[in-house]
């Protein structure tokens, strides 16, 4: 019995580890562009920093304001993707850096952003990044699948970041000097500093 159970475990382990290889085949065959749309932004530092900054900003403002981003952000990504052929391959680096600086400053100052402004910021970020991701589409890519993947990734990242921030901050009426609030504001200061450095480097080059 015992050797057999070990053998079963071994087989299960091998089967489990083998599943990713099977995924790779699917990617190559049909649903590939969905996964490409979902994974492309997650491997790009600009997307990661900006999306997380947006999620954290929404989370600090509380769930009642932040939950508007759940539809707004993916829709913005889709709008940006639709705009991509119009915009072409214009570099969005300076705009990205400006958005990082703006969101970082709002976070560092612990500003109570109104819901409409929050939605506008998130929509702007989403359109920007959607267009940037769309610019790298090949002619043979299935646009519908890519768009679906991108929207799903955007939905997941923003919702999860927001939820984690809400949980981390615990209460909306937290005092501004509690260490949790300070940690989030310090993160905002760092993001703003990164945006500022990036903007200057883009301008200089």
């Amino acid at each position, binding site marked *: 019995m015992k050797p057999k159970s070990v053998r079963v475990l071994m087989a299960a382990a091998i089967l489990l580890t083998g599943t990713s*290889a099977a995924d790779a085949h699917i990617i190559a065959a049909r649903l590939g562009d969905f996964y490409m749309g979902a994974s492309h932004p997650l491997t790009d530092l600009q997307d990661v920093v900006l999306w997380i900054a947006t999620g954290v900003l929404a989370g600090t403002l509380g769930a009642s304001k932040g939950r508007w981003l759940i539809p707004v952000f993916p829709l913005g990504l889709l709008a940006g993707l639709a705009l991509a052929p119009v915009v072409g391959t214009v570099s969005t680096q300076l705009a990205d850096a400006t958005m990082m600086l703006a969101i970082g400053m709002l976070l560092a100052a612990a500003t109570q952003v109104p819901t409409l402004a929050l939605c506008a910021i998130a929509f702007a970020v989403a359109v920007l990044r959607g267009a940037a991701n769309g610019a790298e589409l090949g002619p043979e890519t299935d646009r519908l699948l890519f768009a679906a993947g991108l929207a799903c990734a955007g939905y997941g990242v923003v919702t999860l970041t927001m939820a984690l921030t809400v949980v981390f901050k615990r209460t909306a009426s937290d005092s501004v000097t509690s260490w949790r609030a300070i940690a989030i504001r310090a993160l905002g200061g760092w993001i703003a500093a990164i945006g500022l450095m990036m*903007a200057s480097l883009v301008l200089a080059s």
Partner: protein
Amino acid sequence: MSLHVPRALTAAIASFALMQPALAHEQAGVAGGLVSGLLHPVTGIDHLIAMVAVGIWGAQLGAPAIWILPITFPLVMAVGGVLGVLHVPLPMPELMIAASAVILGVAVAARLRLPFAAAALIVAIFAIFHGHAHGAELPRAANALAYGVGFVTATGLLHLFGIAIGTLTRWPAGERVIQGLGAGIAGIGCYFLAQGLGAVA
């Protein structure tokens, strides 16, 4: 059983090791930018001790300084970085950086209690000089965002390190240790100051 477990483990490890998918997302210079951004503030001793001294002094000053510092310092330093990248000349950058280590070290050693605005002004001036040096020495080929992320993270972590050391002030013996550290920082700063003036080869 005893024989089978290692074999199963070996098999599991082997299958894990063999399944690494090729997920390389080619982005020129991201890794290089991150590494140089992270290492740059840590590799210059004069920068490193000044950053840690700022953290320690902030912790010594207590209430508003200890939490305003981590929020604003990277930002002020990035302003200096912008000046450096754009090659706006600042007077005597090397001397100012060495002097910052001396002054901050003395402030820590003497437990200098300045009003918050004065302390913030001193730290801000030095932060701009430090940022300027980092910006001016930036490798051109590196990815801009990655360099920024690495640079800000390294600076912020150095600060946190200083603040963590600074919490020793809660105990009387720790206070003495910190004053000793401050004196050491001022001493190293003096060496760099002398070097900058050309007294030491």
